């Protein structure tokens, strides 16, 4: 089965993240960028399905040139090829535009559902923008079922089943292929790229597309055409430290007294 994996390069959550002053978008130069942790799990899930069922794994990403690093990581883990939509005009696109653009890139560069691919895999939620619904939105545009937040994926014959795990409980879902599946944190432990994998990745094909190549009109993307606009952003003044004491055997009582003074108990 042929699998498309959607990946995204995000700022490292362990580094400080900033919004740019000029247009309130993420200041990507100010932060360390990494392949989103959840994407590595999506890549791992794709590789496991490929190992069991054969086929090809294609990585698809939209983002600035720097996203090449995220692509290389996925390829060195074992993905076969990559498609990268890189165009300045994409900057500042909203979630709806992004979902539509991803669907377009998949159909033009990989092929129609059922012909070019059988399954689209993605992380359930990027750590930088928590719309948290792009995989389901892409599925909706492609007219495919979305099986999200997968903890387990089972492909048997022409159908895919997922154990969906969220804060609200577990739901068992099933659908006929082709389909879109997003994976949760518990799906697997992603493999480390081997030295051989890293060397091989350098020779794997990466197709870089412009908007025109992907058949996307510039009016369909970008900050000027986005369906939402950020009008202002400001760092919240950091919470300042209050009282700090060393425990001298009565700290529990002192906390209780503090809570009483704040009318919290």
């Amino acid at each position, binding site marked *: 089965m042929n699998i498309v994996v959607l990946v995204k390069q995000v700022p490292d959550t362990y580094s400080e993240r900033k919004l740019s002053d000029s247009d309130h978008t993420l200041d990507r130069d100010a932060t360390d960028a990494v392949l989103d942790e959840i994407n590595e799990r999506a890549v791992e899930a794709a590789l496991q399905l490929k190992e069991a069922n054969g086929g090809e794994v294609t990585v698809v990403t939209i983002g600035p040139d720097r996203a090449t690093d995220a692509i290389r990581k996925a390829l060195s883990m074992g993905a076969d090829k990559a498609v990268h939509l890189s165009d300045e005009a994409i900057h500042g696109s909203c979630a709806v535009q992004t979902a539509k653009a991803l669907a377009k890139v998949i159909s033009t560069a990989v092929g129609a559902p059922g012909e070019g691919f059988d399954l689209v895999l993605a992380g359930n939620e990027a750590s930088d923008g928590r719309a948290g619904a792009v995989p389901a939105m892409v599925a909706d545009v492609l007219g495919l079922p979305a099986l999200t937040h997968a903890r387990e994926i089972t492909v048997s014959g022409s159908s895919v089943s997922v154990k969906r795990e969220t804060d609200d409980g577990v739901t068992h879902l099933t659908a006929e292929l082709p389909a879109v599946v997003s994976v949760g944190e518990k799906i697997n432990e992603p493999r480390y790229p081997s030295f051989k994998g890293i060397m091989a990745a350098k020779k794997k094909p990466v197709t870089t597309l412009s908007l025109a190549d992907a058949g996307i009109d510039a009016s369909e993307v970008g900050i000027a055409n986005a369906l*939402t606009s950020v009008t202002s*952003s400001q760092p919240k003044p950091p919470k300042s430290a209050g009282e700090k004491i060393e425990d001298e055997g009565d700290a*529990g009582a002192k906390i209780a007294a503090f809570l009483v003074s704040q009318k919290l108990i």
Partner: protein
Amino acid sequence: MAEVLVLVDHVEGEIKKVSYELLTAARALGEPAAVVVGPAGTAGKLSDGLKAHGAAKIYVAETDSTDFLSPEVSVLESLIGSVNPAAVLIGVSADGKEIAGRVAVRTNSALLGDVVGVSGGDAVGVTHSVFGGAYIAEAKANTEHPVITVRPGSVEIEPVDGAGVEESVQVGAASGRSAAVTSREPITGGDRPELTEASVVVSGGRGVGSADDFALVEGLADSLGAAVGASRAAVDSGYYPHQFQVGQTGKTVSPQLYIALGISGAIQHRAGMQTSKTIIAVNKDAEAPIFEIADFGVVGDLFKVAPQLKDEIAKRKS
């Protein structure tokens, strides 16, 4: 006045508090109209509560479909077409975000995700708390009928009577294929409040040291009627289940009181709790970054401090 559609969040006939928060928030934009999608009889159980929280209308879409989230999506899509609402409000949850995204992409509506406030005016405006509360951003919709997901706990409920006129809505055939639900296992949360809805949260970190010792965290939480949380370090060490993780890769909480036991306070964790109104921290390490944001910090052994605090609370209650 334009209607504002509020998707009612419910589990087996029990309403979720966020639905009332949405009805309150909706009044800033127009006339709240509740949308109930569920098996036959669901709306009957919920209508009194919805009326008491200002629902002028209640759209009732009863269905036994096993299609996953598609009934909600198609009902909202068709209501957007027929009533052209000022906005659609949905509570933030895994399902809520997914429904919102699908409705927005189908109706070409602005998607404003995970907001903490909404405002009316020429365009619908929202407030986001980004990067775990490190930034406040204002955003607006550039389309009609924006779809907005609102973070639970960010709006204070103001009950007000509404007419609650019921109108039944057909669940249309799904466009495109849908996943089917074969079975569900709802989480049995026990007696503790839900983490994101709790007004007090007690969390443990690596300093708790073991899964068994998390009983200490639970004991203190229960004395306060609090939810229990855990840092990523504690979850990764297997001390506590993942669904209770607070932080950038877990849940974002904003309770009245947050007590951090044995949590160092890495950015990763702070991103999930730094908007809490009052923060208490207990940690052995005087240099732990958690103290930078704690209203009251104790440098000490949590195994001595927490039991004493629990006793003091018990004393004050009796």
